[in-house]
């Protein structure tokens, strides 16, 4: 593995609809650690996550991946990034396997079908790889989205309320997944209304407040 990655926020500010949500946010996250973003509803947690992905514009300040601004990195940054938002990014009319093949291809890797089957089995979706996503329950769809995470080779995981609509078993699976990811030198940034422990890794806390 090459040099450990770092994610840095430098004097970050965000505005939405003309209103300033937060400003002067500084933070450094090292490899093997995870960042828990806390704050009241509407303070801008999702906006911050989307800024990290490069989906939302930055009002002021910079986001640095390995000490280089993400704006300057384009493709190589996105190679290292895996985002799980509120939406599952699953096409209802296609099967679980077809969906995983597609999202894998988007990430630049061909899907290893055997590995996919074992990941699905781990998430309690054994034998469902040919089933259309439309026929799955809400919780099962969420687990398919998590499988995407498990199959990704990205070093930075950005998760927006990943525990929503999950039962206890699912929550445990996810937190184990994140723990393994961190053990291998990955980084994770997440928001959640539930404080779920991730293995033995203590969270680095970032509290967002309105200015």
């Amino acid at each position, binding site marked *: 593995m090459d040099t450990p990655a770092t994610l840095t926020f430098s004097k970050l500010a965000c505005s939405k*609809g*003309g*209103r300033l949500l937060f400003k002067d946010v500084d933070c450094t996250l090292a490899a093997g650690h995870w960042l828990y973003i806390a704050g009241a509803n509407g303070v801008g947690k999702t906006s911050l996550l989307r800024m990290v992905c490069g989906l939302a*514009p930055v009002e002021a300040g910079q986001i640095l991946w390995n000490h280089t601004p993400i704006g300057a990195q384009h493709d190589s940054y996105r190679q290292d990034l895996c985002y799980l938002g509120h939406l599952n990014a699953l096409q209802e009319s296609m099967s679980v396997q077809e969906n995983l093949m597609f999202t894998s291809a988007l990430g630049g890797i061909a899907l290893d079908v055997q590995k996919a089957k074992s990941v699905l089995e781990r998430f309690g979706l054994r034998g469902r790889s040919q089933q259309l996503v439309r026929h799955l329950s809400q919780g099962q769809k969420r687990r398919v989205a998590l499988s995407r995470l498990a199959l990704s080779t990205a070093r930075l995981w950005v998760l927006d309320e990943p525990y929503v609509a999950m039962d206890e078993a699912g929550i445990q699976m996810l937190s184990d997944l994140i723990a393994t990811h961190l053990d291998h030198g990955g980084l994770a940034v997440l928001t959640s209304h539930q404080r779920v422990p991730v293995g033995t890794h203590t969270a680095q806390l970032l509290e967002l407040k309105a200015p």
Partner: protein
Amino acid sequence: MKTSVTHWFKFASPQNFYHLAGKLWPWFAALATVLCAIGLWIGFFVAPVDAQQGQGYRIIFVHVPASQMSMFIYLVMAAWAGIGLAFNTRLSGMVASALAPTGALFAFLSLLTGALWGKPMWGAWWVWDARLTSTLILLFLYLGFMALHASIDDPRRADRASAVLALVGAVNVPIIYFSVKWWNTLHQGASVSLKGSSMASTMLTGMLVMVVAFWMYAIAIALFRVRNIILDRERHTEWVKHAVA
């Protein structure tokens, strides 16, 4: 040298531009009125009667300048929109939005005067002349720009989306113009113009004066309009609350 550049950059802030525009627009409005008066006087009283078309041709003094301004304003609007996209400045998008209605108005004026000219000439209120048709399409492009902007709630996203549209439109304007000309010549269409008669120098002077008059008007009204847009967009800030109080 450096100080003068930074001096101009200070006007990129909406607040400073608001005050600058407030001082400038009455001057442009005055210039526009004076030049318009001169231009129309030349057009309607000084310029000689045309050999082929008699008095009716005089509408050219409004029709051609309006037509040219509508095209010119579209390019200026697209340029401001492009600057806003490239440098992420808020003011550029506001200026582009301020220009659009005026450009549309000139396009409409050009079509209206074209019809007024065409009626005595061809007996019809509309002819599928190359310039008229291109101006009609330009009007659609303006309306599309304004419609897109109006339908997006977030002003920042609205500015950026309509900026992309304006740039795509600007690239297409020459293509559309060329294709319409091709279409018109193939179909031996009617032409609303002074073809076949030479232009007396007074006619040219008159049209030039009107072009400049319209230009001054466009600047004046755009400055005026952009002030209102600034007030609306920046209404959360302190200086606007003071200014409006």
